[in-house]
């Protein structure tokens, strides 16, 4: 059994409420942290090697050290609970079942950053979760963990929950800030970065829910101890939300030393493929990361075992690797159509583009239309190259990474499954009746046996 830092007490009766949470050692990190200096906390976080869990994997301690501290200007911590990347539903689990863990992490982090007013920006569709969080906040306040002069430290802190209203783009940190200011979720053009000018032009740090909950074990264990868990620059534990054609979809906490094969096939995690089907492909880190065919998923191009960590998942770059991303792990079995799946993902990004910059606004719509044609047997061979060209002209040329996020899945699908696209073009009628199937993506497990 891997080590659990976040979900250790997830099964405890009543853990959603303060008493049970406190009994299991909750809020110890606040007691410890408020006796430290904010700088010392940032140091611990740096030592822990904790990387942002929102998708980009940027070192959290380093990010915190960038926050500007102009005299007399308030600073803010904002928790990114917008979680909308298809395949990702881990933050929801944390907030729904162990809300106090997030509140605890937020108090420590707010102290470290000097944020007296901290906001949780949660996607609007998670409409029932603000109640849970607000109850946890109220409980924390009654028990002296929030409000004025917390534990006699002189530190004041309030946490508020703000609901979004349906826009994936508000997960991008500057769009989130705009939205929190009551505006359209248009990402800002950087620089300036939020650490200098963020919410209401004040220095702001935006962190993912999971990142902020991980601050709790970082402080409790100490940065160095935390860094010993995991491997290399993938320290600590990571939540993976697994879905698709597996036996046990759900949220799993892994220590990043396990292999992809173990994650999919062991009973501790996904429990293998559903209905005895064969593994065809997987998107290991949320819909924006490259899809990998089974053979490249379980083993790298060099033939080495692929592990569930930042480095190993990206081994091979985009040519033969993928990314850890947000930890949204989508498994496709032999019956699934990669073209259709890619089409739904393209439709998603088109739907979610804010429309500010031309390559993303126009390119996402164009890709969706072409993919729909190919999927429904109306495509041409040249459409495949056209798609490739369009994604290449979006990638890297946009204001925010949503453009890249829309381009990568299309590129990877063509790169690894081109014959499936061609089959659709060549068999316009048959492709309406059946899927391409596994074809030559030989099941690597079978090949071994």
């Amino acid at each position, binding site marked *: 059994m891997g080590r659990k830092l976040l979900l250790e007490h997830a099964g405890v009766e009543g853990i959603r409420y303060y008493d049970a949470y406190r009994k299991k050692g909750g809020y110890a990190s606040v007691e410890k942290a408020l006796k430290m200096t904010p700088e010392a906390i940032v140091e611990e976080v740096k030592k822990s090697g904790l990387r942002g869990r929102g998708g980009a994997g940027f070192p959290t301690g380093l990010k915190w050290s960038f926050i500007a501290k102009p005299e007399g200007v308030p600073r803010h911590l904002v928790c990114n609970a917008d979680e909308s990347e298809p395949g990702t539903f881990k933050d929801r689990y944390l907030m729904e079942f162990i809300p106090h863990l997030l509140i605890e992490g937020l108090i420590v982090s707010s102290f470290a950053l000097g944020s007296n007013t901290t906001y949780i920006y949660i996607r609007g569709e998670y409409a029932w979760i603000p109640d849970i969080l607000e109850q946890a906040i109220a409980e924390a306040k009654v028990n002296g963990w929030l409000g004025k002069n917390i534990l006699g430290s002189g530190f004041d802190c309030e946490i508020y929950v703000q609901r979004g209203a349906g*826009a994936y783009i508000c997960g991008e940190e500057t769009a989130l800030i705009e939205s929190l200011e009551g505006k*359209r*979720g248009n990402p800002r*053009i950087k620089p300036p970065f939020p650490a200098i000018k963020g919410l209401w032009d004040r220095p702001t740090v935006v962190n993912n829910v999971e990142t902020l909950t991980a601050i709790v074990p970082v402080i409790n264990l100490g940065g160095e101890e935390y860094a010993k868990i995991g491997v290399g620059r993938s320290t600590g534990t990571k939540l993976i939300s697994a879905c698709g054609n597996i036996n046990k979809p759900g949220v799993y906490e892994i220590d990043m030393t396990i292999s992809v094969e173990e994650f999919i096939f062991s009973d501790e995690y996904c429990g293998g493929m559903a209905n005895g089907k064969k593994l065809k492909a997987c998107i290991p880190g949320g819909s924006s990361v490259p899809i990998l065919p089974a053979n490249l998923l379980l083993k790298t191009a060099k033939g080495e075992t692929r592990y569930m960590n930042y480095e190993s998942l990206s081994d091979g770059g985009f040519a033969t690797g993928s990314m850890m991303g947000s930890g949204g792990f989508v498994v496709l079995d032999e019956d699934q159509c990669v073209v259709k799946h890619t089409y739904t993902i393209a439709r998603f990004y*088109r*739907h*979610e*583009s*804010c*429309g*500010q*910059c*031309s*390559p993303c*606004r*126009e*390119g*996402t*719509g*164009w890709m969706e*239309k072409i993919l729909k044609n190919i999927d429904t047997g109306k495509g041409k061979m040249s459409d495949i190259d*056209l798609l490739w060209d369009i994604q*290449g*002209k*979006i990638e*890297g*040329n*946009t*204001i925010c990474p949503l453009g890249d996020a829309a381009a990568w899945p299309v590129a990877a699908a063509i790169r690894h499954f081109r014959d499936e696209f061609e089959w659709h073009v060549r068999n316009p009628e048959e492709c309406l009746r059946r899927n391409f199937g596994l074809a030559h993506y030989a099941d690597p497990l079978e090949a071994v046996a």
Partner: protein
Amino acid sequence: MAEEKKLFKVTIDNITVEVEPGTTILNAARQIGGEVTPPAMCYYSKLKGSGGKCRTCLVEVAAGSTADPRPMPKLVASCRTTVMDGMIVKNITSDRVLEAREGVVEFLLINHPLDCPICDQAGECDLQDLSYSHGTEGTRFEFQKRTFIKHNLGPYIQLHMTRCILCYRCVYVADQLTSKRVHGILDRGDRAEIATYIEKALDNDFIGNVIDVCPVGALTDRTFRFKNRVWFTKPVKAHRNCSKCCGKVHAWLRGDEILRVTGRKDQWGEVEDWICNECRFEKKNLTDWEIEGPADINRHSVISQGHYSGKIGTTKPTETFPNIMNGRQPKLLMDIHSVSEVNPPDLNLAAIPGPAHSGDFEEKKEISDKQ
């Protein structure tokens, strides 16, 4: 005396200039001028916060600064990136830039109606210019274009949203020059549009400036009399004593008639000074104005090239495009420009799937002839 301010050296396409710290790459390039200046469709130096959106001004930063000479991994929007001392920038000397820009132009055009023959902006349209200089031949977009209904935003301004490239300039004008903004960007993604949501007039002393800032023919002057092609009109510098604005304008004449009034544009197509609605829309008599003399239209666009000799309004341009474009063959829109009569206003180009070709006009004309 204060010490002389340190200037930053920046090299763009092998040409070095010294600029004030805080200058953007685009403005540094404008100081050099000519071909090394990236095209800008959304940036407008007089509108705070503008730029960064259209991505036509992307450039490659080959070296960040003398202190940190690493290249920037991605192309950057030159209008929103400030120079560093020792920065090396590649614009037209970078294949990556040219390719990306070609992509951007294509993106801007896929849903654009290409209805230049019936568009008031034709001849002074930044998108038209851009597609000549940076576009590719033909289109690869084989779907129905996005269309919107035309709206009159009050008595002065017409909105033809289908042509809009969402540069946001008109929104900044309303925010920064008027006390009350009534139009804005509605919806999102490729459904986004400029609109008022409910039918409302744009009514404010300075709102007419949205027409001047609009890089395309999405916002046009309803009082532009006779809907003449701009290249048949003659711009003159004119001024009057105005209590609201500078009163310095370009008056566009045909014969002795003022067909329209606009702000005076500089070589980058930006107005030198904002003008008020009264000057723009209500002063259409020669007696309203003090005429200073011919205006220099200092742009690389069709109107400046199309400068004709002879009496205004009587001669049709005789120049061929390769002629006025220094031998370059325009790749796009050529056929709908070659003859100015092909302007049947009843033709809805947006309804034609794919690009409009001359055949579309001729066919249509035949049909209407038969009727």
